[in-house]
């Protein structure tokens, strides 16, 4: 019997308990314990990656036990290419976030315990295949995040944390109600089983038969959609995000944007697309408009920001908007069957790649911001700097690479994902693809503005003595930068692992 995934989830959970138990006084031990357990998870994730069979496309490392048989609840864990990719991303970003928060002095034991529990919640969300315990983890991630913002955040942390929590809860309750309706109709909480039912049409007929309400499918879909839309977020459900990202301490923002925002996209891919393809098709045009609005409006909003963190927060929304575009386009019905399958596969491949790339790049960017804040005592306005490339050349160079990766420069990781998405979406929904390119343009403008205002121009006299990156800090940012190049040049590394999964998803969508 294999318990890989259970063990993987329990490592950070127990590590968190241990860190909390060590107390505020033993700071070094606490940090060591946090880093140790997150590295252990990374090791485990790498082992899994190596043992993963990329050709099957099915669920692997699965564990299935009866839990509450009377309610159709099972303990069911497993990953396919998508799940594994997200587990990998979580495993990579968490140790970086822990290292970036090495200097937290206020109750470090609680801080690190919360970070580890957040990681446990994330790992659980990406591996659970039964709604009941998937939902436990989905919500479990919320509480540590709330307290990390609430207790260690910036000056307006209180409202930001509350807004974040309430928005997410509204989505969660809608999601829960939808799934209760589904369970009532089908007696199942199992994602894989439900997807099979959706494909054969049993789900729709059962829902209608149980509730005697022809539009119930659409109502249930909207509930589930709301749950994920808030988390991604989709415009207009995004207003919690800039506040939360900018008020959270930067290492926590790394986790929020790097991994937690992927929970929403993951939910779309694992749950919404396979279980509700019909409903998505019914409201496809409005959904594509939402995706386009997310891409374009958030890019313009980012352009208008004066705070680097808020700018990057809006840019995050923009980047995940491409994933939405790809997913909705992939759900559309296309005429030439085999050709459109390839387009769909390209779009979904791109979406998966984009998820991973964005996680990597955005967390690296917030890591740079945290290093910058350390030097300026928390100052991070766009106008507070100028010309600092002269005093901190290494910092400028490395952050520049990450910024270019974020705007999709060929050769760096961001390019491949966006390219594949546009390649796939263009034949499927040409108008949406065309308008969305506007987002790319604006992204380029605001990221270049950032580079110009912060790094170039005449040197702001205040920062003459700003120290450049220390060796330790260079080592800290090295893995992310290296991966940006590796994935930019050799994306097959990830595509190879997820290809079979994507093909399976495309098959699932065709009926």
């Amino acid at each position, binding site marked *: 019997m294999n318990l890989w995934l259970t063990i993987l989830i329990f490592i950070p959970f127990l590590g968190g308990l241990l860190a909390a138990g060590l107390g505020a006084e033993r700071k070094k031990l606490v940090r060591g314990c946090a880093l140790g357990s997150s590295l252990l998870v990374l090791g485990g994730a790498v082992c899994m990656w190596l043992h993963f069979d990329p050709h099957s496309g099915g669920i692997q490392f699965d564990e299935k036990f009866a839990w*509450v048989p009377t309610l159709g609840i099972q303990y069911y864990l497993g990953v396919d290419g998508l799940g594994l990719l997200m587990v990998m991303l979580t495993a990579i970003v968490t140790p970086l976030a822990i290292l970036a928060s090495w200097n937290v002095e206020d109750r470090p034991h609680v801080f690190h315990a919360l970070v580890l529990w957040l990681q446990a919640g994330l790992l659980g969300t990406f591996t659970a295949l039964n709604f009941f315990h998937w939902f436990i983890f989905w919500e479990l991630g919320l509480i540590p995040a709330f307290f990390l913002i*609430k207790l260690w955040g910036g000056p307006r942390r209180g409202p930001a944390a509350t807004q974040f929590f309430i928005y997410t809860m509204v989505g969660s309750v809608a999601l829960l109600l939808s799934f209760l309706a589904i369970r009532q109709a089908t007696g199942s909480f199992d994602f894989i089983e439900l997807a099979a039912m959706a494909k054969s049409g049993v789900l729709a007929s059962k829902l209608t038969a149980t509730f005697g309400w022809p539009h119930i499918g659409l109502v249930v879909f909207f509930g589930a959609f709301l749950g994920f839309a808030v988390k991604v977020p989709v415009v207009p459900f995004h207003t919690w995000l800039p506040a939360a990202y900018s008020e959270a301490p930067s290492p926590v923002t790394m986790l929020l944007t790097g991994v937690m925002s992927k929970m929403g996209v993951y939910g779309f891919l694992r749950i919404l697309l396979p279980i509700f393809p019909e409903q998505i098709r019914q409201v496809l045009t409005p959904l594509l408009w939402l995706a386009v609005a997310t891409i374009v409006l958030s890019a313009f909003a980012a352009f208008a920001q004066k705070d680097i963190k808020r700018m990057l927060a809006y840019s995050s929304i923009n980047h995940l908007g491409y994933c939405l575009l790809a997913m909705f386009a992939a759900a559309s019905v296309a005429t030439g069957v085999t050709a459109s399958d390839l387009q769909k596969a390209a779009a979904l491949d791109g979406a998966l790649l984009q998820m991973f790339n964005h996680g990597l790049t955005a967390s690296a960017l917030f890591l740079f911001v945290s290093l910058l804040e350390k030097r300026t005592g928390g100052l991070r306005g766009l106008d507070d700097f100028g010309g600092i490339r002269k005093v901190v050349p290494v910092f400028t160079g490395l952050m520049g690479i990450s910024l270019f990766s974020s705007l999709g420069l060929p050769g760096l990781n961001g390019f491949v994902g966006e390219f594949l998405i546009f390649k796939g979406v263009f034949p499927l929904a040409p108008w949406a693809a065309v308008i969305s390119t506007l987002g790319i343009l604006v992204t380029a403008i605001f990221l270049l503005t950032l580079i110009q205002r912060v790094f170039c121009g005449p040197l702001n006299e205040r920062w003459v003595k700003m120290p450049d990156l220390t060796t330790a800090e260079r080592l800290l940012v090295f893995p992310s930068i290296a991966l940006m190049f590796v994935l930019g040049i050799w994306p097959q590394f990830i595509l190879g692992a997820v290809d079979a999964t994507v093909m399976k998803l495309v098959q699932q969508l065709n009926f």
Partner: protein
Amino acid sequence: MLAWTIYITFIGVLVLMLLPRDNARAARIVALLTALAGCAVAFAGAIQQTNPGQVTEIIRVDWIPIIGAHYYLAADGISLVLVVLTGLAAVTGILFSWNIEKRTKEFFAFYLALIGGVYGVFLSFDLLLLFVFYELTIIPKYFLIARWGSTRKEYGAMKLALYSFVGSHLVLIGMIAAWVVAKGSLGHPSLDLVELSQVHFSAGFQHWVFPLVFLGFAILAGMWPFHTWAPTGHVAAPTAGSMLLAGVVMKLGAYGCLRVAMLLFPEGVREWQGAIAALAVGGIVYGAGVALVQKDFKFVIGYSSVSHMGFVLLGLATLNTIGLDGAVLQMFSHGIIAGLLFGVVGRMVYDRTHTRDFNDLERMNVGKLLPFAGITFVIAGVASMGLPGFSGFVAEMQVLSGAWMVFPKLTILAGIGIVVGVAYTLRAVQKGFYPDVPAAAAEDHAHAHDHPLEPISMPERIGAVILIGASLVVGLCPNLLMKWIEPCFTSPLFERLVKGGI
């Protein structure tokens, strides 16, 4: 065996009365030992019961033969769950009132008398006996509030007693009517619940008797808009009193609704089903909304109880097995969680800071002064929001699941209640424990408050851990209780009630 829960508790009352007046320590220990023994018997008896789906007789002797009353104690799975809940609530309530110095022995005597009455209600299968135990609980709860309470205690106590009496009178009228009709159809007088549940009362009769009896019990369950005793009563009561009021006394009402009103008049329920569900959802949303704007910490918890009991009533109104299962589980879950919330607010915070006003608490930064209380409240709050992993989630999930089938639109409304529930809990956490105070102001206050608050004592810690543990265990392993509850609603006893439900 389970009958000993009642006997032990009343023996405890007698022993307490014999103790010397000024020996507070002895009184506490006797009370704790009694409650522990009762709790142990409850657990042991519950585990022993091999077939929880069936009504298992404990004792049955003639009591007043001329009216067909028996001293008839029995238990099925539903009783087991609630008896175990009572045991846990009794023990933790005593742990949370370890600091009572004023007439300690009388306090605990009343306390145990209340517990004994509650055990009695949950185990009675004779209508008259059930009613006697039910009435018996009113007296101790009146005195507990009026003597040891705070903030308008006489008002709160009187309101609670009057509401309870009005409720019991409605029940009594319905009970007598049912007895008369049943005597006609059975040919002999009977008050045996199992026997009465087989009698077919005419539809016209059920139509007007059911609402009387249901309402009589539902008043005590805090059904909106007859809930107003609950917040004032909870606030006025001493900590252990509010823990018991919210934890088990409100369950008496809900239990009565299910065991008497719904079991005897299944056709009546079906006619009034929609109205009950509407009032339940009204309670869920109204309770949550009102809790959102309270200035007094304890009122927040008081109104949250009204909101959570709405889920119990909604579950009962669904009349399908999953909704009913959820309702019973919610009774247990709310008993545990509300007990914990009142414990933190009443004992840990109010007894030390002597204020429950959010404005004062915000200035104190209680989360820093009493870290254990802060963490406990956060955990309890999270459990009360119905976050998965805790008992509240499994219970509310089943209630909503059942409600979807019958009242889809009301279910969506109840969802709004949950969201507001999250909002008021977060607000209470922020205002009560982790306020946003500018550092300078906090510093000032730290100097002003030179005498530190007394640290959280061991009994409080143990009590909190027991309750959190219970909620977590049930949340992660709901099967422990589900295997008692589930067979009940598929048993012949409830057949008439469930079968007709859609």
